[in-house]
């Protein structure tokens, strides 16, 4: 059993993305209010904003952490047509006792896109310091920092143009039994064609090409996420569209020795509204999806290996759940360390995690 922890984010506008770093100890949020906030846990285990700055001149759609091996580095992308790479640097020590101040410095601004940059994500560690961006004009760009010590140089390595505007992308962190894959989704609503694409790096051609389209998904797609794969023969891609989809991808080699992908699409329509975000846990045993209506669903696999919605979380219950704490005037207050659970609206016992 796990616990939920409500946090008031204090962004001035809609929050678009929340991500954790590799260790799960730092959190980055971005919002339409054009700011990025970095959160750390204080000694009581509560999340506190440690940095907050205006990063772009438009809504910030996504934020992504680089592997800690490359330092404390995040990337952001925005409607203002740019993506940026930020690094945390230590300021001078104010005194010998206090910790040095930290601030985030913009290392580079990637200005290649002519339209809104809708998603940004660092590649898995073994590829080096690579960054993929997707933009509304349908172009995926893959940037590489050849010198990981110099974050200001990010030459474009690959540029893949698509006909449809793109809204999201996801790296497959695993190459187990398949080539390196990158998935992208489109939020185009006009055409009834497949909206999720898979790209791979082709060694012979020395470039990234589209190798597969998931034709079962024709509704606009707002998020895609590859499940971490620790060594399953199949890969899983969660897709947020009008419904939630899980695409199972299996690398097969046919008789002629060509390897190709075998796709199997599962559809889950419990959300009753478009799905907005999806994310997996580490072992890919849990899928978390958020709907447009703000309702979070938690999916688990049952004993017959079927994905089932195990819990629903809503931010609208029936009446106040706990007494207000008037002595929390700080802007970023954690509403309460732990939420009380409600089962069908009645006050239940708090369930401890174990």
């Amino acid at each position, binding site marked *: *059993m*796990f*616990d*939920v*922890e*409500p946090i008031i*984010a204090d*962004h*001035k*506008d809609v*929050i678009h993305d*929340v991500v954790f770093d*590799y*260790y*799960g100890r730092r959190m980055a949020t971005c*919002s339409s209010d054009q700011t990025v906030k970095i959160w750390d846990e204080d000694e009581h285990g509560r999340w506190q904003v440690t940095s907050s700055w205006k990063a772009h001149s*438009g*809504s910030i759609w996504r934020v992504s952490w680089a592997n800690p091996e490359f330092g*404390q580095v995040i990337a952001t992308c925005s409607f203002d047509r740019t993506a940026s790479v930020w690094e945390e640097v230590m300021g001078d020590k104010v005194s010998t006792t206090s910790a*040095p101040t930290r601030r985030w410095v913009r290392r580079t601004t990637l200005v290649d896109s002519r339209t*809104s940059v809708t998603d940004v994500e660092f590649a898995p560690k073994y590829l080096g310091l690579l960054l993929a961006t997707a933009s509304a004009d349908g172009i995926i760009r893959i940037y590489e920092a050849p010198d990981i010590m110099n974050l200001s140089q990010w030459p474009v390595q690959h540029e893949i143009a698509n006909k449809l505007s793109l809204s999201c992308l996801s790296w497959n962190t*695993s190459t187990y039994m398949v080539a390196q894959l990158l998935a992208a989704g489109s939020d185009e609503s006009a055409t009834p064609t497949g909206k999720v694409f898979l790209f791979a790096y082709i060694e012979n051609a020395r470039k990234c090409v589209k190798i597969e389209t998931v034709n079962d998904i024709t509704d606009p797609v707002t998020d895609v996420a590859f499940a971490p794969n*620790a060594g*399953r023969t199949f890969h899983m891609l969660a897709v947020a569209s009008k419904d939630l989809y899980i695409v199972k991808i299996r690398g097969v080699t046919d008789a002629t020795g060509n390897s190709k992908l075998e796709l199997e699409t599962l559809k889950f329509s419990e959300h*009753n*509204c478009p799905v907005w*975000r999806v*994310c997996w*846990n580490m*072992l890919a*045993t*849990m899928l*978390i999806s958020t709907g*447009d209506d*703000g309702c*979070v669903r*938690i999916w*688990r*696999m*049952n004993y017959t*290996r079927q994905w*089932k*919605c*195990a*819990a*629903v*979380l*809503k*931010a*609208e*219950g*029936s009446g106040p*759940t706990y007494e*207000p704490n008037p002595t929390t005037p700080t802007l970023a207050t954690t*509403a309460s360390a732990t*939420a009380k659970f*409600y*089962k*069908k609206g009645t006050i239940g016992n708090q369930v401890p*995690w174990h």
Partner: protein
Amino acid sequence: MSGNVHGISWFPNHPDKFVSWGQEINLYEVRSKEEIQPKSSRLPYIPCNYLSNELRYQYARCVAASYHSDQPIIAVGLADGKIGICNFRDTFDSSWEYTPSQQRMCTCLAWNELDANILAIGHDKHRSDSCITIWDIERGVPKETSNFFGLSESANSLCWDHNHRVLIAGMSQNLIKLFDLRQSNATCQSIKTKAVQGLAVAPNGNYLCSYVDSMIMLWDLRAIERPLRQISSSRNHMQLAWCPTRTSLLSSLQRDSPYITLYDIRSVDNESRPEVYHVKRQISPFPAKYQHSSKFAALNWLSWHPRDFERMLLLADALNILDFRLPASLHTAYSNRHKLPLLMQRPLYAAPSPAAAVAATPVTHTAPPTSSCSTHSTGSSLTDYQLSQNSLSFDFLERDLLEDDLLEETRQRALQDYGMHKPDNKRFAELPLTPYLRNVWTTLGNVFCEERLTGLKSTLGINLGHTSEALMASSRIESQLLQWPDGINNSNKLVCYRSEQRDLALQLCGWYFDQELDRFIEQLYNNKEFSRAAMICVFHLKVLAACNILSQAADMMRDPSMYRITAIALSSFNADRCSSTWRNQRSTANMQIQDPHLRAIFSFLTMEKDNFDAVLKEEGVSLADRVAFACKYLSETKLADYVKQRIQRAIEYGDLNGLLLTGESLDGINILQSYMDANFDVQTVALVAINYFRNEHFTDNRIQYWIASYLDYLNSWGLWEKRAELDIKIENIRASARTSRTVYLSCNFCGKSVSNALLDEPRPRSTSTSTNRLSSCPSCRKPLPRCSLCLMHMGTMMNTSGNAGEASTDQAGGWQLKPFAKWFSWCQTCRHGGHTEHIMQWFKQNSECPVSSCNCRCFDMDGTKLNALRDIS
């Protein structure tokens, strides 16, 4: 009672009153929590009081609620063009009715907020009449020409601008006209567009929206010539409205759709002109339990509450009025910790506007949680206080699915050194393992001998083909005709096979022989595995012993009936007499006898002509026992078939017990893979591989991948000590397999390895010579890098005499400190480095790099506080 409803509207200055129209016009007041009344309400889905109705105007075309703050006043437009004003109180008053000179349909109405008496009226087209009328209801029926616009045109929609001076009208399906009423002869500005429906001005006063069919157009009133943005959707729109409590949130209802579509309009200032974009959301307001019923199929009308944040009234399927508030969005991401953080945005409107504060003697109504469908009908007036009180509701649909979390299990097991101890270790017994995994590890522990997991398949010499070895193996098998014990009377012959290999196999399965058998049985008995002990006794034809065990067990059990009956049955079992009856009943009996071991006993005793399928396919009995049984009673070919068949099945189902048969082999890896595919349990797979696949298959890509993934998980949990322990274990395997080390040092100049020379000199027997040799590259003689603190070349022995005092304190720390302390470390950013011990000492006092004029903060680069990382585990 109330019949069909066509539309609903809040009163802008009466925050708790709303009007519904359709067959008749009704006035309601939302009820507060305190005065919950018996079900007198006519509307099932909203708690409200019926106040009054207006019967004169039936089937109104359009209704507009006015801004009068003294009393709720509405204007009603009828199909014949008549406009009526009604305050639900006074009796009929002819001066409050206006009929146009030409009879045609009234299309739209718009009250002016500034001057509450002014009403703009739109009519359908007529050749000789104008379509827009401005009526000051206090001054009687409009007559002056300045009150009429748009001769022989039709008005599609009307609205006032933010200052209520300019009337905006969509006309004749192709024009938007702006009439500036401040001037005497109202001039007009017009734009040609097809989108003339549903005109509305955003609360920020700048944006104007309109739609036609499935397309929404956004205009900027300051520069209305060109549309700001065009939003197309898949369905046709029916109604557009701006949310009055947000600066630019546009809602739309679409035809036959159960969703409210929300467009959050925002703009960004680019170089030349602002660029406008939107974020779209679609929300279904119906309670979850109705979502799949046909009860709520479509939304027909929406009215935003004028003050309460993001609150609205919704009309569904012409009958049901819902009070709905936009749900707060939750944001979440997976964090590999125990908690699932939920981010809520504290919204923009945190401080209640003064107007709301005045009006807010908070009319809080909270639907009782048990009430059928009002989960969304929180009719509360919203204050900051309540916003922060946003409660979370957590509905468990499949509670048990949430409870056993493999992830948490994996972490706990890693913390308790899972896979680091042999199964007979005490620590192993304390691990939180499922019985299945415990059994697997025990079995594997039995089979593992001489540093190798040899499967029974190769032990038994199956698949060797017709080589001489195979022949030899088979030749050594001695078969022995066994006599059934007295009383069993099974007329079928029982042949028992024995050979060296089979004896070994039996041992690997955990079975013992002759004299040791009794001890084994006793051990099982002490472990309370009564039925298994009895089964093994019977398989060794010791029926009497089995009876004893069972009867003794029956004395200890809470529910002894089964054991007792079995004991009685065994004591006087006569196979020839019972077997036909038994066989007839077998299928039902099998279901009723719950203990698989007892089932196996009866199956064995009643077997026909060496057909042991019933025993061999008894899935409840552990594979080891069944294979041991097969080794005892199956002929060579049948045994080979059985083993192969079991391996196939284990691969198919991902049953780790199959490793007993395959041992370390490709089939074994296939079993692991199939278990991984089914259970996602990379920890078990990796640890089985590390512990038991230590020879030629250890380098298999798949095994290496699993191990690497598992190590990565340990890293991301911050369990570095655990990871290091595993690394050491793995390194031992690699060393035995003569794989090379993973860290190399190469010379900066020639690129050749210097680490061999360095590491082959572990004992400084002759310090002087090694110092000379190792301070330079062995192949090109160029010097190795210097320590930036002591300025000695790498490879030189550290001068410990200089800080002898410290060295003595280090003695307590043990000898392990030293090899690492003299090793070199480099900063990955500035490339400066030196002896680790020196560097550590330096950074205790300094934050910058020891090399002069280098400002690198090498030690802070990790970014994570040392302490913070320490307490992760």
